[in-house]
C-alpha cells in the first residue's frame, strides 16, 4: 500500500481585508466580552466560572457577505477569531486565553516543520496502521439494488481498522506530538464511549506521558471494558458524578482541570467542539480520512465520490471525511445524528435537527437546550453520539446548506449494526451504525451507480453486549 502522504496541511486564517466588515468588538481577541452574557442560574454550574450555557441573540453579530458566500472554496474555516460564520469562537475564562493562543501558535508553526510532519506521518503509518482501505461493500450494494438491477455502489472507509478501533486515534496522535513540542508532561481528556479515552491513554503510553481521563460515572458503567483498557494502558480514569454523569459533565470537569493546571497540562479534546483552536486542530488531524478517500476513489473508479455519509456526535469523523470535499460542490455531504427514542420523544441527541444556537464548552454552535437555556440531557444507545452539542463547523455547514443533516433512531441503528455484520462480516460501532442506517432512506433516491462512501468510523466489539440485549440474535 502507498505510504500516507504528509497528513496535515493547515488552513491559514487571515484577517479579512474587506473594510466594510464591521467590527463591533474591542481589540482583544475575545469577540465578546464575557460579562455581556447573562449567566443562567443553574445547578449545572456548581463550580466557579466555567460551565456556562446561554442563549444568545438570534442575529449573528458578524455576517459574511459578498461573493465569498456562495463559493465554499473561499469560506474562512475558521476566520482569525476561530469562527465559522457566526459559530465557533473562544468563549472561555481569561485564564485559558494564553493557553489557547499558545496552542494556536504552536499548531500554526508546525505546518512548516518537516520534522513534525515526518514524525506524524511515520506514526500514523507504523503505529496507527494507516492508510485505511476504501472497501467496496459488495453484499451491501446488492442489498440496496432495486428490482430493475439499479442502485448505488456502497464503499466503506475503514477507520475501524485503525489501532484502537476507531478514527479517534488520528487526533490523539497529532495532539500528543503537539503536547510534547509544548513540553507538557501531563495530558487530560474527556470521554463518552471511552474510545477517545482509550486513544488518549494509548498515545500517552506510547510517548510516556501522564494521562488522566474524565468520564461520566454513568458512562463508566455502560463501557466497563473501555475503562479497564484505559487503566491497563496506564491512565487514571476519574469518575465524574456531577450533572447527569455523562459526556458533557466529563467535558466540563476536564476544562476545570485545565484551567487549574494549564501550565503543565495539555487538554486533548476528543472532537471538533470546544474553543478555537480545537475545532480547527482536531479537524486538521482527521482530514487525512478525506484526503486518502479522494486518492483511493480516483484509483478505484477514476472519479470522486458522489455522496459522503458519516455519523455525527461531536462531529470529528464526519468533518475528517468531509473536509477535503467541502469545496467540491458536486459531492453531497450527509451527517447522521442520533434520534434516540425518536425526535418527538425528547430522548435523542439530534442537535442540528432539534437544537438552537448557544454556547457550550467554549464555542457557539447548535445545542440542545430548554427555554431557560439549560442543557437538555441527550439520549442515544451509542455513548459516542450522546452529546448535546455539535462542532461549530457542522453548524456552519448546515446553515450554508453545504451539508445535510438527518437522524436515525436507536432501533434503526441496531438494525444497521446487525445488517453489516451479516452481510459483510464487519461489526460496526453503534455510532457508525447510525450512518449505515441512513442508507435505507438514501439508497432508493440515488441514481444508478452513484458512488456512496460511508465512514466506518469504528468497530463494534465494544457494543456487542449492548446490542445483544436489544436484538434477538
Amino acid at each position, binding site marked *: *500500500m502507498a505510504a500516507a502522504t504528509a497528513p496535515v496541511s493547515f488552513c491559514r486564517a487571515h484577517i479579512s481585508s474587506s473594510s466594510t466588515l464591521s467590527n463591533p468588538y474591542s481589540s482583544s481577541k475575545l469577540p465578546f466580552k464575557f460579562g455581556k452574557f447573562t449567566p443562567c442560574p443553574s445547578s449545572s454550574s456548581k463550580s466557579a466560572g466555567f460551565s456556562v450555557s446561554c442563549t444568545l441573540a438570534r442575529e449573528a453579530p458578524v455576517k459574511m457577505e459578498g461573493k465569498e458566500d456562495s463559493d465554499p472554496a473561499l469560506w474562512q474555516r475558521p476566520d482569525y477569531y476561530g469562527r465559522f460564520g457566526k459559530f465557533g469562537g473562544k468563549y472561555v475564562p481569561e485564564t485559558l486565553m494564553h493557553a489557547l493562543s499558545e496552542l494556536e501558535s504552536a499548531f500554526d508553526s508546525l505546518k512548516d516543520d518537516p520534522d513534525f510532519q515526518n514524525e506524524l506521518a511515520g506514526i500514523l503509518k507504523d503505529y496507527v496502521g494507516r492508510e485505511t482501505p*476504501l*472497501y467496496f461493500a459488495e453484499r451491501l450494494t446488492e442489498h440496496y439494488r432495486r428490482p430493475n438491477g439499479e442502485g448505488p455502489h456502497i464503499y466503506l472507509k475503514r477507520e475501524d*481498522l485503525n489501532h484502537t478501533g476507531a478514527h479517534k486515534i488520528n487526533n490523539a496522535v497529532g495532539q500528543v506530538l503537539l503536547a510534547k513540542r509544548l513540553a507538557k508532561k501531563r495530558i487530560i481528556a474527556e470521554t463518552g464511549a471511552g474510545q477517545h479515552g482509550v486513544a488518549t491513554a494509548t498515545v500517552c503510553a506510547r510517548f510516556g506521558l501522564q494521562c488522566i481521563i474524565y468520564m461520566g460515572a454513568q458512562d463508566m458503567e455502560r463501557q466497563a471494558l473501555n475503562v*479497564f483498557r484505559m487503566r491497563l494502558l496506564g491512565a487514571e480514569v476519574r469518575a465524574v458524578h456531577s450533572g447527569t454523569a455523562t459526556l458533557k459533565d466529563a467535558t466540563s470537569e476536564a476544562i476545570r482541570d485545565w484551567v487549574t493546571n494549564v501550565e503543565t497540562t495539555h487538554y486533548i479534546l476528543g472532537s471538533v467542539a470546544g474553543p478555537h483552536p480545537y475545532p480547527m486542530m482536531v479537524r486538521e488531524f482527521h482530514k487525512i480520512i478525506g484526503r486518502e478517500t479522494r486518492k483511493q476513489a480516483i484509483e478505484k473508479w477514476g472519479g470522486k465520490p458522489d455522496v459522503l455519509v458519516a455519523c455525527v456526535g461531536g462531529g470529528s469523523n464526519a468533518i475528517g471525511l468531509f473536509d477535503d470535499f467541502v469545496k467540491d460542490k458536486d459531492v453531497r455531504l450527509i451527517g447522521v445524528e442520533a434520534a434516540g427514542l425518536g425526535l418527538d420523544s425528547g430522548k435523542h441527541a439530534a442537535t442540528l435537527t432539534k437544537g438552537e444556537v448557544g454556547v457550550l464548552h467554549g464555542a457557539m454552535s447548535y445545542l440542545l437546550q430548554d427555554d431557560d437555556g439549560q442543557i437538555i440531557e441527550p439520549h442515544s444507545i451509542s455513548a459516542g453520539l450522546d452529546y448535546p452539542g455539535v462542532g461549530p463547523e457542522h453548524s456552519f455547514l448546515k446553515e450554508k446548506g453545504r451539508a445535510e443533516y438527518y437522524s436515525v433512531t436507536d432501533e434503526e441503528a441496531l438494525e444497521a449494526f446487525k445488517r453489516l455484520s451479516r452481510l459483510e*462480516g464487519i461489526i460496526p460501532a453503534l455510532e457508525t451504525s447510525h450512518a449505515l442506517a441512513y442508507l435505507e432512506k438514501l439508497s432508493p433516491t440515488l441514481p444508478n451507480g452513484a458512488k456512496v462512501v460511508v465512514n466506518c468510523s469504528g468497530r463494534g466489539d465494544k457494543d456487542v453486549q449492548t446490542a445483544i440485549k436489544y436484538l434477538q440474535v
Partner: protein
Amino acid sequence: MPAITPGKFGKFGGKFVPETLIACLKELEAEFNWALQDPEFQDELEIAFGDYVGRETPLCFAERLTNHYKNKDGQGPEIFLKREDLNHCGAHKLNNAIAQTMIAKRMGMKSVVAATGAGQHRVATAAACAKLSLECTVFMGTSDMEKQSSNVLLMKLLGTEVKGVEGNFKDASSQAIREWVGNLQTTYYLTGTIVGPHPCPSMVREFQSVIGKETRRQAMEKWGGKPDVLLACVGSGSNALGIFHEFIGDEDVRLIGVEAAGFGLDSGKHAATLARGEVGVYHGAMSYLLQDEEGQIIGPHSIGVGLEYPGVSPELSFLKDTGRAEFYSATDEEAVEAYKRLSRIEGIIPSLEASHALAFLEKLCPTLPSGTKVIVNCSGRGDKDAATVLNYQQYSM
C-alpha cells in the same frame, strides 16, 4: 533445504485419515494448486487482503520496549513488532480464513464447518463466510463456550450457527469432522490450525506466509537488511510459520518459537508440545503431540486459549528436529506480565497468545549483541483477553 515430498516434512505430516476423506483431500489439493497459479484468484485475494483484511500490516519500531531492554551502557537489541493485531478481526487468523473461504466458494460449496481451539479463528471464519455469503457452522466445546462467551456472541452476530459439544476443543473438532464427512459435496471444512492432513498444513502456511513476505520487504525498506531474529508464539504454529517460512532458507536469521508453559513445564498443566511432547499421529498428521504412555491425548492448558492445543504443525516439528528453529516456552504468569508491559509502555494491548512471544524477550534480549534486529510477530490484539487478565490478577492477589 532438502526437497520435500508434498505433504511430508521429513517424517512429519502426511495424510493419516479414513479412506472416505482421501478423495476429498485430493480434490482440495488440486483446487489449492490451481488457485495458487490462477491470476484471477490471486488478484481477488490481493484485493480481499488489502481492502477487507486491511493488509499490509505495519512493521512498527517499538521504541520504548527497545529502551526497556537496554542495559546500563545503553546497549541492546532493536525490537520491531509485526502488527498482525491490526488486521480485521484482530489477529492473523483472517489471512487464512478469507483465502480458504474463497476456495470453498470456487469449489461450489454452500457451507463451511469449523472448530479449533482459538476463538479468533472462529470469528475470522464467521466474518469471511458472512462476506462471501456461505452458511457457517462452528462447533465448540461447552466449557469453551462459557470461557469465550463474547466470541460466541460475535459469531452469532455475524450469522454463524454455534453448536455446543459436550467436552472441549478435541470433542468439538471431532464433531465438526463428522459433520463434514456426512456432507462432503456441499460442505467445506475450514481448518484454522496448521495441523491436519495434507494439504491443510501447506494451505494454511501458504496463506499465512504473506506475513513473512511483507516483513522481508519492510525490513529492507527500514534498515536495508534482514531481521536477525524472528520471534513468534506457537499454538499449532500458524502465525509462527507465517512469519518464519519466508526466511527458512536464510540461515543467518534465527527462528524462535515460544510455546505455552501454563503453570510450568513440570506441572503437567501446559501446552508445550515441542518441549515435552512425543511423536505421534493426531488429526491426520504425524507430528509432536502431548500424549500419555497409552497414546492418549493429554489435555493442554494455557491462559492463552489459542495456544491450548495438544499438537503442533508437522512443519515446525521438522524445523525443530533439524535444528533450524529453536523452541522455548513462557508460563501464564510471564505472559500476563508481558501483556501488561506492552500495554503500558507501547500502548498496544497484545493478545495473551502473542504475549508469550513478548515474554521471551526478557530472557532473550540480554543475550543479544547491541543493535540486533528482533521482530516479534504481534499476532493478535488483546481486548478479548481483558476480562481474563482482570480475573487472573484478582485471583492471584
